[in-house]
């Protein structure tokens, strides 16, 4: 499925469940998401993590609402509890099955976003593991110079920002030296298309969602 259409559908779903209070709908979305992830070969361990990690915020929201809420406290508490899971699992259907490169391709080719933006995001994404390692290295470098850089030390952030600015400049130069010119036409090796099938899935998804919200008498 075209990643940009998938993202669009998920945004619609997320927006809609933010304004509805149907517990069964949230649960149904989680179940559908699990089925989808299962079909895409997601490991059981990953699924288990997705269940465990949101538990704390979900319980937090549930208890806040249950203790301090107004109106139908029990209903609202469970709505919020299941909503968190619905967000996490529908989100996971995107993040766990879509390659960032495919998304960049779709944004550039199907939605005609400036290629600078698409590739900038991509390059930044590719830098993330390097940045994590860099923070470790900066702290080690500090220690070797007798200075402890704690997580609230401005020097650590100054250094990290400096490194980032430097990287971004070098990256811009690297892209330019590999022939990249802002707003210039490019050819595309990986062809990203929006097929009729994508539109149909989007349409069916949105219709299904409306049926779930307005038609089915959930209890």
């Amino acid at each position, binding site marked *: 499925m075209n990643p940009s259409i998938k993202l669009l559908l998920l945004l619609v779903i997320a927006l809609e469940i933010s304004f509805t209070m149907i517990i069964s709908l949230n649960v149904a979305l989680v179940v559908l998401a699990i089925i989808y992830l299962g079909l895409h070969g997601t490991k059981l361990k990953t699924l288990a993590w997705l269940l465990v990690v949101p538990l704390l915020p979900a319980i937090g929201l549930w208890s806040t609402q249950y203790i301090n809420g107004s109106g139908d406290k029990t209903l609202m508490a469970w709505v919020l509890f299941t909503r968190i899971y619905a967000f996490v699992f529908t989100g996971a259907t995107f993040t766990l099955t879509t390659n960032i*490169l495919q998304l960049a391709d779709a944004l550039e080719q199907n939605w005609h976003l400036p290629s600078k933006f698409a*590739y900038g995001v*991509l*390059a930044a994404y*590719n830098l993330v*593991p*390097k940045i994590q390692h860099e923070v*470790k*290295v*900066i702290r*080690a*470098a*500090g*220690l*070797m*110079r*007798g*200075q*402890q850089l704690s997580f609230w030390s401005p*020097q650590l952030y100054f*250094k990290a920002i*400096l*490194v980032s600015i*430097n*990287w971004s400049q*070098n*990256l811009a*130069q*690297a*892209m*330019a*030296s*590999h*022939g*990249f*010119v802002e707003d*210039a*036409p*490019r*050819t*595309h*090796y*990986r*062809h990203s298309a929006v097929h009729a099938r994508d539109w149909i899935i989007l349409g069916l998804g949105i219709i299904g969602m409306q049926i779930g919200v307005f038609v089915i008498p959930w209890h």
Partner: protein
Amino acid sequence: MATITLHNLTFSYPEAVAPILDQVNLTFASGQFTLLTGPSGTGKSTLLKLMTGLLSLPANQGSISFNQTNLAAIVPTDRAAQVALMFQNPNQQFAMDTVENELIFALENRQLPPQQMPQRLTAALDFVGISHLRHRHLNHLSGGEKQKVALAVIVAMDSDVILLDEPFASVDPTARASLLRRLVRLRDEAGKTIILADHDLTDYEPLIDNVVRITAEHTLAIVPQVQQPALFQAFNQRVSTHTTWPTPTSGTPLFQLKQVTLQQAQHQLLEPTDLTIYQHQTTLITGPNGSGKSTLFEALVRLQAFSGQLTYLGNDIQKLKRKAYARQVALLFQDAETQFLNITVAEELAQCQKYAYGDYFTPAHIDAALQQLNLAGHQDQVIYTLSEGQKKKLQILLMLIMQSPVLLLDEPLKGLDLASINALVQLLQTTLAATQQTLIIISHQLTGLTPLIDCHLRFDQHQLQYQEVT
């Protein structure tokens, strides 16, 4: 085929007093291999960036033309067809995740029809001899491998002029020779014009057509044929030295490796190894790119996971307090900028003096060292505007001032010219004599370094062992 003409080229950086290039006039003939040389910090990188259009030349500051067409008048999308630049720092020239995707990115920018891409891609990788790296992640490649990928991109883009800015600073001799062979073939078979900036002139003599030097007057001069042998002579000596280093057997063990293995991603770098490195000996580590030398250093300072046991003076390093251990064992990072914590040179020096573990470096000593390293007068400069060579020298000075009992140096001579190397080795020798530190050095470049070395470790084929010759 392209001839490059520089006409009255003048360039100064906004913060500088004097122009770094002053009224440069020169023509680089088409289809020739030119070596551009000159001490670090004299403007080689600046010139190459100007010629690529990465730095734009202000109006009325002369002109750069490719086949009589002014560079400024060439449409940006056509520039890559004219000229490509390979950078000094192998870590900062890629935008994508894998080798294949980076090549595709470049070809898409050149607007090559997609159906021609697979063939062009395969040909470029084959030409450089790195077909096996095609699907690898760029982050997992060694410096030398990255430079090979960078060359493959240039080959794929098929630019007429190939500029290389100290491309071999972090490349081992084998990879360097292989890259040089490819460049010569590009000149001879495809008629490319090649301009390569380097200060280490080893092995170039039989390959190149011209030598151009950056002069003290900030201009370029062609070195006449008769003077060239003298220029190369200084570098050829290293080939003829047959130094042997004994395998150490006695002394205080500094580091002890017990069944240590190293791994990067799914790649095994070091098989289970038992080894002792001794105190007060300067140990040199050599080995091909990607063998795992830097990873070993990162493991020694606990920036990299390893299995087995590693002890420092008999204590398991995993059990030592991070802070206390960092005061004992410091690493000189391969990338100089990693070491810096402040903004100006003076601030960095002050920081080190404040936290130094010994008092050998008095202000007078530091001034003398700055003179010796040709860094005097730069105290108020922002570190990040120093040239790569100046950064390297400052970085080493800072770590010497700290006087940690053990200093691991990862490619300390990277990007330095011969004069700087000699000054640096001298400084290291006098400092060592006074402070009794232990140095462990990774270096590809041995010119000038040999007087320092007591013993030699070879890291190759997943093995790390003492060897008498390099």
